């Protein structure tokens, strides 16, 4: 938003073809015609020019994306790339779909627009993802059939799983085996559930026991380290956390950004703009505005009282107990939507705080062990100094007669002194 890169979660349709119990979106039958998409893209590109942002990622979601025809995406893709190129902007695309509506007709656009890569969703066990007619088993069967068909054509699939009570009951080992061994999914991420949107019994039973959930994530970390780490298996968010603790510069999920309001917005099929997909479909009081009704997106974002609340959230939370946390730098109070849907306010920390802290602590230990192993490997070479050195390089180097390079201090096992952390 203010930096070099901007993201939008774009919902060209608010329609969905399934009926999952814990969906946080309040669906409508609205879809976005191409001429309206053109207006959206022009206003987003205008905003990027005004903000001097060069790159955009569009995360295509719904509703359910595959309730739209592939031909719509073919025309949308051509239109977006042409408009972006004319303004010297770069646009990347990412697709999240439930795969229930998948057919081979999608292959061409998935290859061209999405780099032959698709994000989908499945839980284990599947208790809450359902068709309008039929239960979770019918859903799982159809999903698996379509996933297999897509993979047979060479499409890469990554999966988002939402933990449920059954997940905790089966445990991390079985959960991991289901995805990696049985489904051959080598890239999956586990999300925590939250009761967004209209209430129902499943949402009222949330949150899961946070202690149990923490245990599950810790166990999953250990299973992945033993069986998948270095073997081409990615388990989010654990893999990025390990990277963070080993060397920094990891790509942590949006729930742990310093302020998601500076990173992205969501736009739905009606043109409403809000913080993310849950907000834009279920909480009109938190809309930033409507892109079809505003003169320009930049002013809307600058002036929106709702967005001001999101921007203010970390500055308020930091004055509570987040400041004392050892993991402030990688969490910043957690996710606004999880906080709001459990607490009714933005201005508290994420209700999964205990889980996050337990997981951070465990992964920190795991990362230390990995780093130690690397340090003991003579063939491993420490990377150069981190960006920590850049300010010194520019100013103190000129002032101080002793510019000591961090690279001169080589890695060691055991110490927790920061010189080692920088190098690892």
């Amino acid at each position: 938003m203010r930096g070099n890169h901007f993201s939008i979660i774009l919902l060209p349709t608010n329609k969905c073809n399934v009926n999952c119990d814990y969906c946080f979106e309040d669906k409508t039958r609205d879809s976005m015609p191409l001429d309206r998409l053109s207006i959206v893209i022009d206003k987003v590109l205008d905003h990027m020019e005004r903000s001097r942002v060069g790159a955009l990622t569009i995360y295509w979601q719904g509703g359910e994306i595959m309730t739209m025809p592939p031909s719509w995406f073919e025309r949308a893709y051509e239109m977006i790339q042409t408009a972006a190129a004319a303004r010297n902007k770069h646009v990347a695309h990412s697709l999240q779909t439930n795969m229930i509506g998948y057919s081979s007709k999608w292959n061409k656009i998935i290859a061209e627009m999405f780099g032959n890569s698709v994000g989908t969703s499945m839980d284990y066990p599947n208790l809450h993802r359902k068709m309008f007619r039929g239960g979770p088993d019918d859903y799982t069967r159809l999903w698996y059939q379509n996933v297999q068909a897509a993979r047979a054509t060479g499409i890469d699939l990554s999966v988002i799983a939402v933990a449920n009570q059954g997940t905790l009951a089966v445990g991390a080992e079985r959960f991991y085996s289901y995805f990696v061994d049985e489904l051959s999914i080598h890239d999956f991420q586990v999300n925590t559930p939250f009761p967004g949107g209209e209430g129902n019994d499943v949402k009222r039973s949330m949150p899961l026991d946070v202690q149990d959930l923490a245990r599950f994530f810790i166990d999953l970390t250990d299973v992945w380290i033993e069986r998948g780490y270095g073997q081409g298996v990615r388990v989010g968010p654990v893999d990025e956390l390990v990277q963070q603790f080993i060397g920094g510069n990891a790509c942590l999920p949006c729930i742990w950004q310093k302020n998601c309001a500076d990173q992205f917005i969501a736009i739905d099929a009606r043109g409403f703009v809000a913080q993310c997909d849950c907000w834009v479909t279920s909480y009109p009081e938190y809309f930033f505005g409507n892109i079809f009704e505003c003169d320009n997106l930049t002013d809307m974002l600058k002036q929106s009282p709702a967005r001001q609340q999101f921007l203010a959230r970390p500055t308020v939370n930091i004055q509570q107990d987040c400041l004392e946390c050892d993991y402030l730098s990688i969490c910043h109070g957690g996710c606004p939507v999880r906080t709001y849907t459990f607490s009714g306010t933005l201005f508290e920390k994420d209700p999964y705080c205990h889980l996050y802290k337990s997981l951070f602590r465990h992964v920190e230990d795991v990362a230390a062990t990995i780093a130690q192993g690397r340090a003991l490997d003579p063939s491993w070479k420490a990377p150069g100094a981190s960006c920590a050195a850049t300010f010194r390089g520019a100013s103190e180097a000129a002032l101080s007669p002793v510019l000591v390079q961090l690279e001169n201090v080589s890695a060691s096992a055991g110490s927790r002194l920061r010189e080692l952390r920088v190098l690892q």
Partner: protein
Amino acid sequence: MVDLAYNIPVRMIDEYRDSRVIVRSHSASEIVACLTKEPVKQLMYVQLLSLDCEVDQLIHWGESAPIDIVMQDPAEFPKLYRYSDLLENHPVRVSIPAAPGCYKAVKLAVSLNFGVKLLIGQPDHSLIAELARVLDLYLYRPNVAQPVEYFHSTFLSFYQGVPNALWLVQEDDPAVIRYITDDGEDTVSPRLEGIASRADCGSVLAGYQRALLAKESECESCEFWDNCGGYFKWPEKQYRCDGVKSLFRSIKAGAAELQSQLKSFEKSRGGTRQ
């Protein structure tokens, strides 16, 4: 011969365009306006003196130019969130007064990945306790990946066994850096206000240090003189250094701990470190 650097109000840039300069302003828009007309050859960094300015225009201005955000009061720390996007295109340091509440400000600053410089005077007993917490944060907390000055340079100095003068680390040595007041007067840094007139800026520190080393003074027998050089004896020469010495001791112990661990590690690998 050291090439002098000048800390100037940004509006005076035309007078110092050929010098090494640190430019300062309370306004991001003034910085952009003054520095955009013509490039500055030797811009060391930009000093932003207020946490209440509209910072967006600085994000994409002068990419890679270092920025120093100067806090007037550590209690302003929550505002740092609004400045974190500067890091996308600039190295950024936050200068934080070593005053009650500074631990919170440092904690957030390093958590947002800013470097930190403590603006330190003559800390009293309670402030020393808070600074000890800051030092612990810098030395031992795994998520701190940025330098906290003056601790960082002092740590490296002890580690390498090479003295590193605090006057330089803190950018207060008038032989190296001059402060140009808003009225255009060429003088010493604000911390040293009153120590010298313009005429003797280059030599005043040496004279001041000679006086401190008078027989039986605290400085004469101080084990940290090579690093401190009497930095903490200004402005009040009677200031007792027990507290700041305890901080030096902790930093030295940390450096020794690292050296020891590296030695044992190399020994365990059966080799010597290059």
